C-alpha cells in the first residue's frame, strides 16, 4: 500500500506539504483554510479527484481556477447540465467529415476501394472530436480538470465519469483505451441538489466548503477589495455573519459579501450605520422576504 500499483500513471508530487499549498493559494489571492489546503495536498499525493460540496457562492469553482493558476496548469472545464451525454462530455465522431471522406473516395477513381481500408481510415484520430474529458486525458501539458455542478446530470450519466475518475482512462470501442500520460488534478463541484451515487463518492476525496469564519471572511474582503480600510472590512464581515445567523431563504454568499464591500467603497462609506446597512441590503440578499426580515432584525432596539 505504500507504492502505487504498476500500470497506473505515476503520481506527480506537485506540492511539498500542506503549508506550502496554503501559501501558494494565497499568492493567487485565494485564502484557503486548513481543510481546503489539506485536501488539495492529499488529492495530489493520492492522485484522487476532489468532490467539493457546499452552499452556492463559497468559492468552489474558484478553488479549481486558483489551483490551476497556482500550478500553471491549463484549466479544462466541463459544465454539467441535465441531458449531458457522452458526445458532449467524452468524445464524438465527426460524421460529417467521415461522410465527405467516403464520398471523395468514391469520386477519385471509379473503382470502389476496399471497405476495410475506408473503415480504418474514418475511425482514426483525425475524425475524432475530443470533448473536455478526453481532452484532459490526452493533454501533454499539466491540466486541472473542473467538472462543474456534477449534481445536475442524471444518475445514469454519472456512470460515464467513473472510468475516468478511477483509472484516468477513456475506452473508445473503435480505437481502444486511451490512458492518461499524467494524472490531472480533478475537481468536481456540487451544490448538493441531489445525493450523488455511492460509486462516484467512493472514488473521490470529499471536501465541504462552508461559509468562511469571521477572520477568514475579513481577510478575503481585505484581499479582494482594493483600498478598503480594516475597520470597514471588519464591520462588513461581522454584519454578514450576523445576517447569516438569521433563518433566511438564501444566506449571503462570499461573492455577495464582496459585492457589498465594493458598493460601500463606491459610495464612499467609512462606517456602516443602520441606515446604510438597510439601504444596501438588496446587494446581499435576493429575496424580498429575506430583506424585510434582515432589515427588521438589524434595526432592533434593545
Amino acid at each position, binding site marked *: 500500500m505504500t507504492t502505487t500499483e504498476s500500470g497506473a500513471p505515476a503520481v506527480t508530487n506537485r506540492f511539498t506539504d500542506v503549508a506550502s499549498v496554503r501559501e501558494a493559494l494565497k499568492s493567487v489571492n485565494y485564502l484557503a483554510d486548513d481543510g481546503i489546503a489539506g485536501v488539495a495536498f*492529499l488529492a495530489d499525493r*493520492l492522485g484522487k479527484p476532489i468532490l467539493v460540496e457546499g452552499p452556492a457562492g463559497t468559492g468552489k469553482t474558484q478553488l479549481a481556477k486558483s489551483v490551476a493558476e497556482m500550478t500553471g496548469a491549463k484549466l479544462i472545464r466541463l459544465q454539467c447540465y441535465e441531458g449531458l451525454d457522452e458526445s458532449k462530455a467524452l468524445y464524438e465522431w465527426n460524421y460529417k467529415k467521415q461522410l465527405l471522406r467516403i464520398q471523395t473516395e468514391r469520386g477519385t477513381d471509379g473503382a470502389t476501394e476496399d471497405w476495410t481500408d475506408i473503415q480504418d481510415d474514418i475511425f482514426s484520430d483525425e475524425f475524432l472530436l475530443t470533448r473536455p474529458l478526453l481532452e484532459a486525458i490526452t493533454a501533454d501539458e499539466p491540466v486541472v480538470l473542473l467538472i462543474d455542478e456534477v449534481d445536475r446530470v442524471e444518475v445514469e450519466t454519472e456512470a460515464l465519469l467513473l472510468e475516468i475518475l478511477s483509472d484516468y482512462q477513456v475506452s473508445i470501442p473503435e480505437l481502444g483505451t486511451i490512458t492518461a500520460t499524467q494524472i490531472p488534478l480533478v475537481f468536481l463541484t456540487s451544490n*448538493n441538489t441531489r445525493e450523488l451515487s455511492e460509486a462516484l463518492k467512493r472514488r473521490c476525496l470529499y471536501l465541504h466548503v462552508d461559509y468562511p469564519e469571521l477572520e477568514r471572511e475579513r481577510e478575503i474582503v481585505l484581499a479582494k477589495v482594493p483600498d478598503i480600510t480594516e475597520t470597514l472590512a471588519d*464591520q462588513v464581515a461581522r454584519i454578514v455573519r450576523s445576517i447569516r445567523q438569521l433563518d433566511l431563504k438564501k444566506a449571503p454568499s462570499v461573492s455577495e459579501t464582496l459585492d457589498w464591500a465594493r458598493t460601500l467603497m463606491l459610495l464612499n462609506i467609512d462606517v456602516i450605520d443602520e441606515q446604510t446597512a438597510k439601504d444596501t441590503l438588496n446587494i446581499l440578499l435576493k429575496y424580498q*422576504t429575506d430583506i424585510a426580515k434582515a432589515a427588521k432584525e*438589524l*434595526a432592533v432596539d434593545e
Partner: protein
Amino acid sequence: MLELLNGFVVELRNAGLPVSLTENLDAMEAVQHIPIEDRDAFKYALGATLIKNHAHWRSFETVFEVYFSLRGPEYKIGEDGTTDIDEMWREMQEAQQQGEGQGAGGMEGMTPEEIAQMLMQALMNGDQAMMRAMAKQSVKRFAGMEPGRPVGGTYYLYRTLRNLDLDGMLDKMMEASREEAPDDLTSLEERLEREEYQDRIEKFKGEIEAEIRRRLVADRGAEAMAKTLRKPLPEDVEFMHASRDEMSSLKKALQPLTRKLAARLARKRKHGRKGPLDFRNTVRHSLSYGGVPAEPKFKYPRPAKPELMVVADISGSVAAFARFTLMLVYAISGQFSKVRSFVFIDGIDEVTDYFKATEDITEAIHRVNTEADVVWVDGHSDYGHAFEVFWDRYGKDVGPKTTVLLLGDARNNYHASQSWVVKEIQHKARHVYWLNPEPKSYWNTGDSIVGEYGTYTDGVYECRNLRQLEGFVEKLA
C-alpha cells in the same frame, strides 16, 4: 496506529456512518502523507477520505475527538500535580495582576469571583490560549469528577456551567463594553458586539465539553466513551423523542432535503415516460443525418399534479411530527396543484390561509400553533369528533383528484372512532394515506386504534424519522 485506526473505523460504522472498504484503505494511505504531529491535518485527511456527506461530519468529529484526543498524565482525574500549562497559566496571571499588587498563589487559591473576573477578561479579549486554560481550570474546580463514577459527560458539563453563570457573564460583558466605548453604541453596534461575545462563549463551552471528554476518555478508555456518546444521525432521530438540540439539527437537515426532494420529483415528472412524437423537433434533428429521421424526438408528458389535503393531529405527543410533515409538504408544494391543510386536537380548523399569507414556513407554523382553533371540549385528542366535523364542513371538497393524508398516532382516548368518515373519504378521494409516528410495535396497543382506521385507507405508514418521511413523500408525488 493501524489498530487504533481500525477501531476508529469500526466505531464510525457503529455510529451508522457508511464507510466502505476502499474508503478505509484510502484513509490508511492518506495518513501516511500527513505529518502525524499535525492533528488538524490528520483530522481533515481522515474526514476527506471517510466522510462523504456533510450531515455526517458532526458524528465524525465526536468519534474523532474520543479516539484521537490528547492524552497524557495531566488528564488523569483527581491528580493535583502542576503541569506545564498550569505553570504557563500562572505566569500569565501574575503578569496581569502585577498592577494590582496581588500575589495570588495560583489558580487553586482563587475565589470563584476572581475566576469569573479572569474568565470575563479572557472572553472580552478573545484570548484563545487563555480561554483554553480557563476551561481546563473550571472543569478541574467545578465539575467534581471522580474516577470510575458512572455518570455521563452532560452531568459534569451542567455542574461546571452552573458554577460559571455564563448568561450573567454576557450581560456583564455588554455593560463593560458600553462603558469602554467613547460614545453611545448604536443598536447595530450593540447587536454585533453581543453576537461576538456569544460566539466566544459558545467556543468556551466547546472547550469545556472537550476537556470533560478528554478526562473521561482517560478514565474509561475510548471504546466505552464512544459508546455513550453515540448519537443517531439527523435523519434517524425519532420525531416523538427528539430533544431540543436534535430538533434544531432536524430543522437544519430538513432544508437541503426538501431541495433535493423537489429537484428529484421535478425530474421524475419530466423523465418518467415519453409523450407523443414531437414532429418539429424530429425533423430538425434529421438534418444531421441528411434528412433521414433517424432519431425520433418526443414531447415531454405533463401529467396532472395531485391535489393534497393534509389532516394533522397537533396534540402534544405528535406535534413535532405534524410540524415537520407540514413543513416538508409546503416546501415542495410546487409539486402539487393545490395543498390544503387542517389541524385538529378534538376540534378541527383549516390552516391553509396561514401558509398562503406568508412565504415564511416557520412563521406559518408558529401561527398554526398559536391561533388555530383546535380545542373543542378538553384538549385531548378526539379523532372521531374531528373527522366528523371535517366531513361535515370540507367533505364536499374531496374529489377524485384529491389525495388525503391523515397524520397522527390514532390514540383516541377511548372516544368513538367514527371510522365511517375515513371510509367515505376513501370512496371519494384518489388515495387516503395514514402516517403514524409511532413504532409499528406500539400500534393498536392501549387506546391506539390505527388498525381500525387503517382498513379504510390505501396504506398506513410508519414515519418515525426524516428518512421514512422522505421516502413516503417521494412515493406520493
